[in-house]
């Protein structure tokens, strides 16, 4: 399970970074989104991967911490998702404004000279 998880994070982060370095704003925002998925999975993984363990204490089971998953990284992921979502939406608006003002979707606001 760990290997699959690690490969998934690696592939997403790799594609994200590649897209981030592309010259079009849409590619950049897609890259940022992929990268943030990878980061969210990574935070989740920092709680150690467990199967069948809830992060919330169950009244019918004992309070032994070994029975439960670590709730903190899950809370962190939730916060990170919310913040990432909001900021991506904001970036999208700026991106549209840049497209409207400069007439191009190049990140520098102008097309590179043709050779």
């Amino acid at each position: 399970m760990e290997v699959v998880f690690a490969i998934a994070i690696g592939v997403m982060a790799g594609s994200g970074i590649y897209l981030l370095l592309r010259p079009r704003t849409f590619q950049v925002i897609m890259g940022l989104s992929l990268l943030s998925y990878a980061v969210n999975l990574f935070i989740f993984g920092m709680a150690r991967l467990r199967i069948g363990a809830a992060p919330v204490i169950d009244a019918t089971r004992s309070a032994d911490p070994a029975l439960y998953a670590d709730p903190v990284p899950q809370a962190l992921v939730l916060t990170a998702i919310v913040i990432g979502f909001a900021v991506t939406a904001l970036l999208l608006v700026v991106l549209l404004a840049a497209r409207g003002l400069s007439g191009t979707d190049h990140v520098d606001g102008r097309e590179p000279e043709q050779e």
Partner: protein
Amino acid sequence: MTQHLLILPILLPFLTGALLLFSSEARHGWRALFALFATLAQLAVALALLAGIDGWIATPWQGGVTVYALGNWAAPFGIVLVADHLATLMLTLTSIVGLATLVYALARWEHAGSHFLPLFQFLLMGLNGTFLTGDLFNLFVFFEVLLAASYGLALHASGVPRVKTGLHYIVVNLVASLVFLVAAALIYGVTGTLNMAEIALAVPRLDADARALFEIGALLLGIVFLVKAGAWPLNFWLPATYAAATPPVGAVFAILTKVGVYALLRFSILFGQDVAPAPFKGDWLFFCGLATIAVGTLGVLAAQKLDRLGGFMVVVSSGTLLAAFGFTGTTLTAPALYYLASSVLGSGAFFMLIELAERNRTAAADLLAISFEAFGLQDRHELEHPGEMAGVAIPAAMAFLGLAFFSCAAVLSGLPPLSGFVAKFALLKAAIAAPPVAPALNAGLLFTALLLSGLAALIALSRLGIRVFWDSERPTPRLQWLEAGPVAALVLLCFALAFGAGPAMAYFDAAARALHDPATYIGVVLSGGRP
């Protein structure tokens, strides 16, 4: 009652911003008054905290550190706010610069776009929270609050250059935020805690494998802070963004880079002076600071316009601080804090001043007109007579501008008799006294870098100053009291900092002592502030 004082720097701007967001823009006067009042209250709270920490007024706080447990959950389990000398110093600087820029913005720039006032309050909230928090992930959240507000402010008044540089600014900071998350997760993964004081206790207990992972996490964290601080080679976005932002925003952004510097300093000491990973201390940070000074100095010399010059001056001051904190030993911390205060006030005044001086440049007027049109907010008579403004214009505008420009130049380049000189003098004196423990080469390099960057700043400022002030073609700008007042206040504070250097330095010394004694900080935080 006094223990709740600590939450006010976060709650006040938060509630003010929220109320301003939902009040109609038509009630302009009331909104302005409300924002002004709230910012004044923040300044009062920051000063009260400063007085309490330094022992001027009797408080139950001990050792110069006070803790506020949010929701009354004790330290390692809940999130705590911690105020010590350094944090309250930063709070006070934030509210001073915030108040000055707010007053300045009310005169003119606030109308150039929408939602300036709420965004400004959220920026203050993010800044205050960053300085107060004692929790690594909470630090991330406040970073995001201040960054989200700063994105909006950087784009305030819109226009092509602002949107273009704003896009770069946002993307760079988003990537930095993702790296921050990876770092926080790694540190949590190996230490099992996010509380900064408990991380400090957990680090020496890590075994070799976990230690390696922790070092990677700390390295990433350091890179994030260096991006915020504008350290070379992570600062290419900075001068353009600061130059393109509206003047009041540029002025308040002067303190934004100091957030990165503050976080670096705080974590380098909590991670342990001797064992902190590379980006936080030692030669690595020192030479990074020197490179930043060098790049900033070249930029200062090359700048053709005052606003770009201001951006590069911010880079130079960041570099100076990084080099001072990276210098061997702890003797440079107090002078560096003095330099930080002086440079924040000086560059804040400078960003506002350059717009006043260059007001009659047609390009700027065009840009302003465009943004007024884009937002449909224009006053009819303002469009008809763009040069004429409401309010009383002050007499002898040119004399005032010249004097203020000279003072700012003296502060930024480190000439006597202003605070910039005292700061650089104190830094150099501490560097000379250091060689028994520090290599003489490093002291020499720091000496050269500081003097050369000062000389370059002086050359560039006088060259551009001549072009702006001795140009007889240029009509005299009209100034309002609302705009000249904040600039004058910040410059006068620089004077006060220079002439009250004794008491000020005593405070900075106490701050440095408290900072280099992390045991007290950790003890007070983890005991929940109780004796």
